[in-house]
């Protein structure tokens, strides 16, 4: 063999070896991840995104709460999404024992999934950790604001919680605190928590799958499925296809056009969309212009044509079922002529209605958002306003949703979607309608006093006060042009019985999912 031929051969061998080594060296990370076929005892759920963490004190974040809440960890009390009433869970009863103190009785015989007994000390620790620690828990900001609590466990079965001022809905707030063992870190958040829930974490392959297994020490009724497996796909059509193709049992956060077909289930999801008008600058600082925007928006047409009827045109920030909802409120009429007349009046009074207004939306916040924004821009242009659309990602849009807004923002309208998970109007109006609320675009001191007064009431008086507040806001402030109370869609396999409800988007209880009657063989 000549040297030239030998060199050529060497090069060919070298090239082949290089290719082989490259494939092998990339590792078998992906290939090794297979776990066999379909197990009938495993509930397969496909989410839109991987939970960033399963830290229980972050459970007010949708992507975390939908996995953690009432599956891995549980609160002392829980809100029934249908009736709105509080139900006992890890607490068997609660009462107001002083104007600023509530006492909770702790359920006996409960253990954490690691075998440790659950006591009042764990409950006190969990509340203190979520609300008073330096962990910057999301539940702290969303539910408790700046409020600090004094929590004590005088014995193994009693917890007392003291507030700085009387808080008639403290048990409702406490329903957001997930209970963890007192051995949990108070200086760092945990990604994989221990809880008392019907399931415990089995295995989390970051980036690929999260598996839960039934908690055999669970104090309540044994859930139907022995295991649950979460995956995540960002495309709604792929999530729908996975359920249609029997690769998943539940697919969440779908749009009407994602292709779930007969397996799609629509449900009211407690979210309300609205234009939040920031009234700091002209021309939006003129109430005639803000009311004109309300007359211009054809909310009925948007729901019918764009949302395909999946939702209800909205007249207020909260949907039916939330304390404070005003069922007598009528939709703001769609009257472009009246809107033009108001804009003309404002122009005649010297308001610079031609000044450009930014209409800010968040990309992919809900199905058809781009079309919704375009329709609204067109409607506002037709009444004589100068509107420019700006679609942003979440971080960008949040700069205009949360105070303090960026300097020199100019007049802008933010398209928002608000979900009241708590079932009480206080959680909406304090954020959106008080002038110092984190998501407020415009308010008045007089209206703030009305909000404060409503928040101190209880029972029917509270309901009536908030209902009146929603009726008065369009005439006194007109910060919002409501669009719709939204519907969610999930895809559900025929082998699973599950009825989604208004809380499903935030808290999807695996224990509520059972084998469909036709499929009810003994799978245990």
């Amino acid at each position: 063999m000549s040297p030239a031929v030998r060199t050529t051969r060497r090069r060919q061998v070298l090239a082949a070896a290089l290719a082989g080594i490259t494939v092998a060296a990339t590792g078998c990370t992906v290939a090794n991840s297979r776990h066999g076929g379909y197990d009938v005892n495993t509930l397969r759920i496909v989410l839109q995104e991987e939970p960033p963490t399963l830290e229980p004190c972050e459970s007010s974040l949708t992507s975390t709460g939908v996995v953690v809440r009432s599956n891995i960890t549980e609160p002392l009390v829980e809100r029934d999404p249908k009736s709105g009433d509080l139900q006992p869970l890890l607490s068997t009863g609660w009462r107001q024992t002083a104007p600023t103190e509530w006492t909770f009785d702790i359920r006996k015989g409960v253990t954490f999934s690691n075998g440790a007994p659950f006591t009042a000390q764990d409950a006190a620790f969990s509340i203190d950790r979520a609300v008073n620690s330096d962990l910057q828990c999301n539940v702290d900001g969303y539910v408790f604001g700046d409020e600090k609590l004094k929590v004590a466990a005088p014995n193994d079965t009693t917890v007392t919680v003291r507030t700085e001022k009387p808080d008639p809905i403290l048990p409702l707030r406490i329903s957001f605190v997930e209970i963890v063992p007192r051995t949990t870190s108070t200086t760092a958040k945990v990604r994989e928590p221990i809880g008392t829930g019907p399931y415990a974490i089995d295995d989390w392959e970051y980036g690929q799958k999260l598996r839960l297994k039934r908690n055999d020490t669970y104090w309540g009724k044994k859930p139907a499925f022995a295991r649950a497996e979460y995956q995540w796909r960002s495309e709604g059509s792929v999530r729908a296809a996975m359920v249609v193709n029997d690769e998943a049992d539940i697919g969440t956060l779908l749009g009407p056009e994602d292709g779930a077909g007969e397996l799609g289930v629509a449900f009211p999801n407690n979210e309300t969309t609205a234009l939040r008008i920031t009234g700091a600058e002209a021309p939006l600082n003129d109430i005639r212009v803000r009311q004109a925007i309300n007359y211009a928006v054809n909310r009925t047409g948007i729901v019918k044509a764009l949302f395909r009827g999946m939702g209800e045109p909205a007249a207020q920030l909260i949907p039916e079922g939330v304390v404070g909802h005003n069922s007598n409120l009528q939709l703001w009429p769609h009257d472009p002529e009246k809107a033009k007349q108001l804009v003309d009046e404002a122009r005649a009074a010297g308001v610079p209605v031609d000044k450009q207004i930014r209409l800010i939306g968040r990309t992919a916040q809900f199905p058809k958002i781009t079309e919704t924004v375009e329709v609204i821009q067109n409607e506002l242009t037709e009444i004589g306003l100068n509107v420019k659309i700006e679609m942003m990602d979440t971080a960008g849009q949040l700069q205009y949703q949360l105070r303090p807004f960026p300097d020199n923002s100019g007049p802008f309208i933010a398209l928002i979607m608000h979900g009241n998970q708590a079932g009480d109007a206080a959680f909406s109006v304090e954020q959106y309608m008080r002038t110092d609320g984190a998501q407020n675009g415009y308010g008045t001191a007089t209206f703030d006093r009305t909000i404060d007064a409503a928040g101190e009431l209880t029972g029917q008086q509270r309901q009536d006060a908030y209902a009146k507040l929603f009726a008065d806001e369009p005439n006194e402030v007109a910060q919002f042009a409501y669009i719709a109370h939204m519907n969610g869609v999930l895809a559900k396999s025929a082998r699973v019985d599950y009825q989604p409800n208004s809380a499903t988007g935030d808290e999807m209880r695996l224990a509520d999912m059972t084998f469909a009657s036709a499929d009810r063989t003994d799978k245990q």
Partner: protein
Amino acid sequence: MFSFVRRRMYTSALPLIIVLLGVFLLARLTGDPTNLYLPESATPEQREAFAAKNGFDQTLLTQMADYLKGVLHLDFGTSMRTGESASAMALRAFPATLQLAVTTMLLAIVLAVIIGCWAAYRPNSLADRLSSLLSMTAASIPDFWFAITGVWLFAVLLGWLPTSGVDSGLSWILPIATLMIRPLGVLTQVVRGAMVSALSAPYVRLARSKGASDFRVVTHHALRNAAAPALTVAGDLAVGLINGAVVVEAIFGWPGIGKLMIDAILQRDFAVLQAAVLLTAVSIFALNIIIDACYALLDARVREPAQV
């Protein structure tokens, strides 16, 4: 050869530093991550504490110096989103992308060589025109559309393949087909063009006149000379695959580095973004060195500087 590779490594160092600094600065131009990570009603004190914890209260220059110091110690920081080491997240995601890209590219090259040679062997024949039409179509199809259509056709309607995921060998088919379609189209055209030129060159006529078989003429004489332009294009396409598998990874739930980068951008997770981009950049530079080395193997003029 070793000195050639060493020279290429030295010349790659400066662009790598530019990438390092560029991603650091550009990431910070995308806005403040505080709103994404703190509760809606976070107090100014909580915001200050968050900024201090993540170093955002320092000047940009100090932040950059800290970052570079960390890089020198192979410490890329911690993800704000997950609390995990950023380098661990990037290193975990990278093999999945590399595996997909390498498999795709090898398949694309093999198929393009076969189809391109076949078409060039009989120019203007039906086979040639058919391959030209198909390769141009393949090069023009948007990958997003192809992926979604593929899911509905092969997974939902026909039930032949899984929609997504990484659970079985069948799961690879749709992602690879989606990633491969454009490189295959482009490479086929390049190979065909280069082979048509090569097959009409004098040295091929000489080989034929010496009695070489058609197969030997194509594989040993023409293809070797046609390989250089194909290699150039394949290199560019391979870089694009490593860098741009984002759509495929997002649609098929492939746990790769493209998806990780997109998530990091959307979440303003600077440490993860920086680690992922740096890892990708290093691999692209490595790939370029490999491509150059292949050139050098094919052509001695590239291997050694010109002697005057």
